[in-house]
């Protein structure tokens, strides 16, 4: 009996270690490939200049248009998504009973929206644009990406808010705080680490997605200076460069992927640092 348990224990431990290795291994492989293939074409030009004539044939220039486009587009979309997802999460947790049927229904719809492929958000954003009479532009991309990232952000904030101890709410209310004051002055502070990581996850999904911006943001070799101009984005820049027959341009696609990876890495680290700074106030 004991020896059977020992084998069982050993077997599952091996299984866990193997899956850990598989996951970490593929992560290292992906990043390794991106660095290996992209580092060669990485240059200051890549991040400081926009494409010049013939860039996609292998001539001079960089992808500053796509870096700026992606950051601006996803940045604004993230702010817009916070403005919608945060009140939603606070509402279902504080103004409605946390586990009420209504709250659970909202959660279910968010999970459902989360699972919809991003191309569908692109198509939906596109039809909204036709309805509003706007063309492929920064604004169009922002609408599509905002819609795309609201579910993931709302659910992540909801998870954080639903962990706020009942007693902390009781304490706030018994000081005479209104729901609004409890929500925005206490719950938001308490959940700040969770909210920061929710924002980061959403930003990451937004900046890495190609399908939602394909029809809605369009593409342009210039940095967008207004909402009505088309905007280049990194995933599409990668996509277009990979699609050319020129090896040096394809290598630049990997360099672009490397830039995108570095942006996401930098954000993750910033979020970690911020979260731990906010954490010192919190008692779980």
């Amino acid at each position, binding site marked *: 009996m004991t020896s059977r348990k020992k084998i069982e224990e050993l077997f599952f431990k091996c299984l866990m270690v193997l899956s850990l290795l598989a996951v970490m291994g593929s992560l290292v492989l992906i990043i390794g490939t991106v660095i290996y293939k992209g580092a060669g074409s990485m240059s200051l030009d890549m991040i400081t200049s926009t494409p010049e004539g013939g860039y996609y044939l292998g001539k001079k220039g960089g992808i500053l248009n796509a870096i700026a486009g992606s950051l601006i587009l996803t940045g604004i979309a993230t702010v817009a998504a916070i403005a919608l997802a945060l009140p939603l999460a606070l509402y279902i947790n504080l103004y409605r009973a946390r586990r009420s049927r209504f709250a659970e229904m909202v959660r279910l719809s968010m999970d459902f929206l989360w699972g919809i492929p991003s191309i569908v958000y692109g198509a939906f954003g596109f039809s909204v644009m036709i309805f509003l009479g706007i063309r492929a532009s920064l604004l169009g991309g922002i609408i599509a990406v905002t819609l795309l990232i609201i579910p993931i952000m709302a659910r992540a904030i909801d998870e954080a808010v639903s962990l706020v101890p009942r007693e902390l709410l009781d304490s706030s209310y018994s*000081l005479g705080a209104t729901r609004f004051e409890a929500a925005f002055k206490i719950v938001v502070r308490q959940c700040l680490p969770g909210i920061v990581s929710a924002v980061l996850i959403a930003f990451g999904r937004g900046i890495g997605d190609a399908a939602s911006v394909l029809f809605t943001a369009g593409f342009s070799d210039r940095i967008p200076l207004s909402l009505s101009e088309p905007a280049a984005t990194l995933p599409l820049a990668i996509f277009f460069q990979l699609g050319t027959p020129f090896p040096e341009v394809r290598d630049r696609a990997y360099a672009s992927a490397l830039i995108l990876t570095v942006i996401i890495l930098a954000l993750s680290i910033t979020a970690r640092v911020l979260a731990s700074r906010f954490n010192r106030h919190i008692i779980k």
Partner: protein
Amino acid sequence: MKETSHLRTENLTVSYGGAEALKNINVEIPEKQITAIIGPSGCGKSTLLKSFNRLLEENDGVKISGRVLVDGADIYSDSEDITCIRKKMGLLSQRPYPLPMSIYDNIAFGPRIHGMKKKAGLDRLVEKYLSLAGLWDEVKDRLNEPASRLSIGQQQRLCLARGLAVEPEIILADEPTSALDPKSSQKIEEEFKKLKSDYTIIIVTHILRQARRLADYVLFIYLGELIEHGPSRQIFESPREQVTREYIQGVIS
């Protein structure tokens, strides 16, 4: 008895999703005294306490009937402003939950949301109530540190000070020492004894000795019913009901 009642319930019945947790409670809580609510766990002590400042209705599926009168006014009537009612009562919970901010801001939070903005005034309140809760000397040099750095006993006194800062008339405490070490518990008890000259204090406790030490008046609840209530001496020395006697002797717990 000469003392007047501060808080009174009339036919208070509470149920959670159909199951009755409190059955037809009629009781008067004397002013500026310590009232202890005792009874085995799950008998409805917290429920009764939370019905006093309408925190109960924050729970899902709660039904409340009957009346709770504070200074003669029914707090459940529609004309009452819920934040005013809650402001009248400070709450101490089983475990302290400081607000996620500095020690200073924990105390200043209540006065601030009720309109106090001046720094000098807030400074004065922070010192006054931290002193009243017996915490000032320990924290006066680190008011801007996160409250989470305090020991759990200090946190509980911070929560007491935070509640006092909104100038309540009644202090509601739900097993306020159950998470604390003996020394910190003793400090809280001493604070209560000092505070009762100015406040009506209602404390839920399952520690009979604590009730004996602190209480002037005792409510004994069993399975959602108020079995008996009266001056502490009478309840502990000559209980009228068999169940009370058994509970006090430790036959049931």
